[in-house]
């Protein structure tokens, strides 16, 4: 049963602390996405990778957020230092390119709920 796995599922931390969220994409998927869900903005794209190379991270606050793919089985999203406004659910998704361009169906993990006090 292939699925995207995210850890931790829940994280409560204090302002100023470093937070690292991890994602294991579905084996064979070469495109990985990080989205953030907030009440006001819905699902915001933070960053995405194809074949481990970052293609777009324009949705990410560069001064505190960083996203990497150390290898094909692991994607990380790091926030340092964290702030209360970062409180949200962070979703990782993986997929494959679509014939003709763009991306096909995305498979989402269950999300990491972050609370920054």
């Amino acid at each position, binding site marked *: 049963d292939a699925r995207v796995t995210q850890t931790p599922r829940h994280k409560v931390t204090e302002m100023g602390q470093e937070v690292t969220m991890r994602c294991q994409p579905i084996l064979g998927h070469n495109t990985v996405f990080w989205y953030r869900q907030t009440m006001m903005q819905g699902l915001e*794209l933070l960053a995405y990778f194809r074949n481990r190379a970052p293609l777009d991270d324009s949705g990410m606050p560069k001064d505190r957020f960083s996203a990497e793919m150390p290898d094909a089985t692991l994607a990380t999203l790091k926030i340092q230092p964290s702030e209360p406004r970062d409180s949200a659910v962070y979703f990782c998704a993986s*997929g494959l390119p679509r014939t003709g361009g*763009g991306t096909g*169906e*995305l498979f*989402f993990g*269950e999300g990491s709920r972050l609370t920054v006090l």
Partner: protein
Amino acid sequence: DQQVKQNSPSLSVQEGRISILNCDYTNSMFDYFLWYKKYPAEGPTFLISISSIKDKNEDGRFTVFLNKSAKHLSLHIVPSQPGDSAVYFCFTGANSKLTFGKGITLSVRP
């Protein structure tokens, strides 16, 4: 810059009736659209898709309609069931803009 817009944040329908969820987009170059469904505390799951070469795609109780001239798509659920109560997102995966709408919360009343 919202390239995909879901202007109605919520919808409530009676069980057995039709649910119609709407989505508008701004870029006529978008050629592929997907609908996702999301339950609380879970990640979104794929529901149905449509390519711009079609104006309709049907899968069981779910039908998506695409009106390219109006840059509008809609998801029809008929008959609606209480288990359909969730947040629905429209999504375009065209090229580099992987944009979701803000979602519509559907409530199906028994």
